[in-house]
């Protein structure tokens, strides 16, 4: 964002200010990075009870028309045609080299497809969708429509009190729901590793419903700081850091998000590269990294083998409040990608012993019925 551009506000901006959030510019929006509780306690509260996140800066887009799923498949490697109405899936927009332009959630509707894309990429994503598949489906951007995530083990109790049917929704499913009289769209999803929901709310109802959720004794507002540590502990990629145009879904360890039919048939940008990587393997891979000591290793830290040769770079790193120590992820050469491989992390010029580790760093608590 250039400095001359005015920072945008979400519909919930006044709520953040009234709760004394520390606000920072993020992807063109003035967003809460933390509330007075602080990042560490917000993180722990979300894992122990429930946290509410304003994610209205993300891009909600509806692709209208019966051909929307097939059209979207020309832009992503995920199996979109295989989704039944109400089912949801994680996938990526790829470029012709198989690099990742953005990652996104796709929910199949009845005669339409809904996608949620990253805030920093949304303008480019929307333009690309209009240009590439605008002739096959209508691309409708729900500009700045309020979207909140309610995450944590108490999320189902909290939202279930307002709409009992939310309690038994399957993980990675979405449905229209009436919340306190408002026509919302609820998905059982999120990006914390916890059970929870994302709730798309009409602007006229958003402040009332969010205040109502925050009034619940188990719910605290959570800022971007804890959102980052929660997703890192859960081994989830952050676009622009762990994945970008130079990394493919295979290198990023996201093969699981590419269905069998798509692996075989291709039909998405960069399919030849990605199919070749599936068949022949990759030269580097995203892995978890656990420092032996207490010092966090941050993004950009060089990873070396025990002989001192550079073998990779950390793409996200910090302290895992629930894990109780430093955690990181990054790319390493494939011959060092196996769990338990000893490596050194060059923190402030000094080698810090670490191990390649399986992710997530803390167990995921998704709802499995």
């Amino acid at each position, binding site marked *: 964002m250039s400095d001359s551009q005015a920072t945008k506000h979400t519909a919930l901006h006044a709520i953040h200010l009234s709760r004394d959030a520390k606000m920072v510019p993020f992807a063109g929006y003035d967003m809460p990075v*933390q509330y007075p509780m*602080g*990042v*560490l306690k917000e993180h722990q509260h979300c894992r122990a009870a429930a946290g509410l996140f304003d994610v209205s800066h993300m891009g909600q887009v509806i692709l209208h028309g019966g051909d929307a799923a097939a059209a979207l498949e020309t832009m992503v490697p995920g199996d979109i045609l295989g989704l039944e109405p109400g089912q949801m899936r994680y996938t990526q927009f790829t470029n012709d080299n198989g690099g990742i332009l953005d990652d996104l959630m796709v929910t199949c509707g009845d005669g339409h497809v809904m996608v949620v894309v990253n805030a920093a990429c949304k303008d480019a994503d929307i333009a690309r969708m209009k240009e590439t598949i605008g002739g096959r489906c209508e691309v409708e951007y729900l500009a700045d429509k309020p979207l909140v995530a309610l995450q944590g083990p108490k999320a189902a109790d909290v939202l279930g009190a307002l709409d009992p049917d939310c309690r038994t929704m399957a993980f990675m499913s979405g449905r229209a729901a009436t919340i306190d009289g408002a026509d919302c769209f609820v998905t059982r999803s999120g990006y914390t590793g916890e059970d929870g929901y994302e709730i798309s709310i009409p602007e006229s109802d958003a402040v009332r419903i969010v205040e109502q959720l925050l009034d619940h004794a188990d719910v605290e507002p959570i800022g971007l700081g804890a959102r980052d540590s929660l997703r890192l502990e859960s081994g989830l990629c952050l676009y622009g850091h762990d994945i970008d145009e130079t990394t493919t879904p295979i290198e990023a360890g996201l093969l699981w998000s590419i269905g069998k039919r798509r692996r075989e048939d291709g039909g998405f940008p960069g399919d030849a590269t990605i199919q070749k990587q599936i068949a022949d393997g990759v030269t580097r891979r995203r892995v978890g990294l656990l420092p032996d000591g207490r*010092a966090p290793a*941050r993004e950009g830290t060089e990873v070396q083998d025990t002989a001192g040769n550079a073998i990779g770079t950390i793409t996200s790193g910090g*302290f895992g409040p629930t894990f109780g120590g*430093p955690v990181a992820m990054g790319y390493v050469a494939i011959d060092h990608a196996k769990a338990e491989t000893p490596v050194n992390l060059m923190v402030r010029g000094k080698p810090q012993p670490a191990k390649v580790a399986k992710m997530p760093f803390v167990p995921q608590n998704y709802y499995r019925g």
Partner: protein
Amino acid sequence: MSDLKFSKEHEWVKMDGDVATIGVTEYAQEQLGDVVFVELPGVGNTVSQGDESGVIESVKAASDVYAPLDGEVVEVNGKLEDEPGLVNSDPQGDGWFMKLKLSDKSQLDGLMDEAAYKDFVDSVS
């Protein structure tokens, strides 16, 4: 608290004879956020004013701790290795960072007193 001196790097200094106890201020800990790791200098190290003499890592970022004065490190607060959060909960008490035996006490005159530091914080925040 009137015997405390303060640096522009948001450290406090408390004198006892030739030995200065040094830590970060309340304002600094608020800016840092939750502290999760502290790298202390080695006892016996000689430091000069302005040297990086340690690191405080919060959930957000790593921040250098600068020596506010010349001297020799005679003691460090080993408690911070297990309880880095003391920097947040008691920055001007149990969260102290290191003790320096000063080589030039006249450098203290270059630091701020509490009132001047308060004005300085108001001017930067």
